[in-house]
């Protein structure tokens, strides 16, 4: 009995981790691109990222997810019809969940990365340009490595929020930890026990991430000297 339900929930744990990591990847990518856009000289790009951030931060995650999952499919198919393509696209819960979470947290990562990009001394970028580096090289060799240190605290925070927000995908029927814990609770008539078990799994994600990211932070802060205020 115990093993049956625990295994059931643990399989959901794998799904949760997959969603969390995939949407983290998408959100980081969106965040980086949008942060570069937000700090660029083009006014149109800056305005675009500003609107993106305002819209995302004004709407609850759950509502956005429901909108994309129920509405996105119809919108895509309408669009395909309009293009006169006779194909139907099936948006399953997994894709909808990952895309929505990536899209939402992209806005939060953008804010983090924007602040971090601005924290890198301007002279560093100018020095890179003076060496004849292309924009791409300046970004990958000078800007990004130095930005990591400033971005890490915000990144950690966003990741912790994101990993917990994955619980929302259970509402659109994806079989993650939450969904399966609720199922196990109903099946065994012990909802408290199994929900508590799920809670421990989430705490495990939090604790491990905090530990790992602290180590990463130490690595990227090598060479930083702290003042005498400590």
């Amino acid at each position, binding site marked *: 009995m115990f093993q049956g339900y625990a295994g059931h929930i643990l399989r959901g744990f794998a799904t949760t981790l997959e969603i969390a990591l995939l949407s983290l990847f998408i959100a980081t990518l969106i965040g980086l691109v949008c942060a570069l856009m937000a700090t660029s000289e083009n006014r149109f790009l800056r305005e675009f990222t500003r609107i993106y951030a305002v819209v995302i931060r*004004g709407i609850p995650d*759950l509502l956005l997810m429901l909108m994309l999952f129920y*509405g996105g499919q119809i919108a895509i198919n309408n669009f395909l019809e309009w293009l006169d393509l006779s194909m139907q696209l099936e948006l399953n819960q997994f894709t909808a969940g990952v895309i929505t979470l990536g899209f939402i947290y992209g806005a939060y990562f953008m804010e983090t990365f924007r602040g971090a990009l601005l924290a890198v001394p301007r002279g560093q970028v100018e020095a890179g340009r003076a060496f004849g580096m292309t924009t791409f090289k300046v970004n990958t060799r000078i800007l990004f490595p130095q930005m990591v240190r400033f971005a890490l605290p915000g990144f950690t925070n966003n990741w912790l929020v994101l990993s917990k927000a994955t619980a929302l995908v259970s509402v659109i029927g994806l079989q993650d930890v939450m969904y399966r*814990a*609720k199922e196990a609770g109903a099946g065994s008539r012990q909802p*408290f026990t199994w929900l508590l078990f799920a809670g421990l799994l989430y705490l495990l994600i939090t604790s491990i991430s905090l530990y790992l990211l602290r180590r990463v932070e130490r690595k990227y802060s090598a060479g930083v000297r702290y003042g005498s205020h400590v």
Partner: protein
Amino acid sequence: MNFEALLTPETFSLYLDGLWMTIKLLLACVFAGFLFSVPLAVSRNSRIWIIGKTVWAFTYVVRGTPLLLQMYLIYYGLSQFETVRNSFAWTALSEPMFCAVAALTINTVGYTTEIFAGAIRSLPYGEIEAANAYGMSRWTNLRRIILPSALRTSLPTYSNEVIMMLHATSLVSTITLLDLTGAANRIYSTYYLPFEAFMLAAVVYMMLTYLLVRCFRYAEWRYLAHQRPQEVK
């Protein structure tokens, strides 16, 4: 886009009821959350090691688990225990409204306690020393110096937390309550117009967020006046 189909008195009243529910939930949990957070934030910085650690453990667990899980634990989970079902508390615990407010409050207390505790910890020590030098007791010191100063400095972070709570109230639609999101969901399933139904709710949420941001900006302008850039005369 077919918004005309949704512009009926029925959907309007449904949205309005949902909006009212969302506002009620937000006010209840922010008010209760504030009341619990202040004493907890003080005890988080207690000189007695075990008190501080206990509060830390509480906030760590609350901040480490999803709100949805906390809500389910209270609404679905507690019915597992015979003693709970037979006790007088069951009349409240079988109410989704009570469970929603309880879960939202516990969640916001976890975050708000850390915000306030952090603000208390980073107060300039000179302020506290000065109060001691004036012969203030610890209670007077707390009431007159520490709390006013700490609550002011945490205003910007606290405003974020309140906006997060506004968004968090949307989760109550998963435990049968009809808030703004729940109303949009009901309208979607009646008219089968997902984009339009959720879009209208999203616009209302954005307006609410904007209103909160304005209110907090005013509060910051008023209570953090000493940090405003001074005009040079």
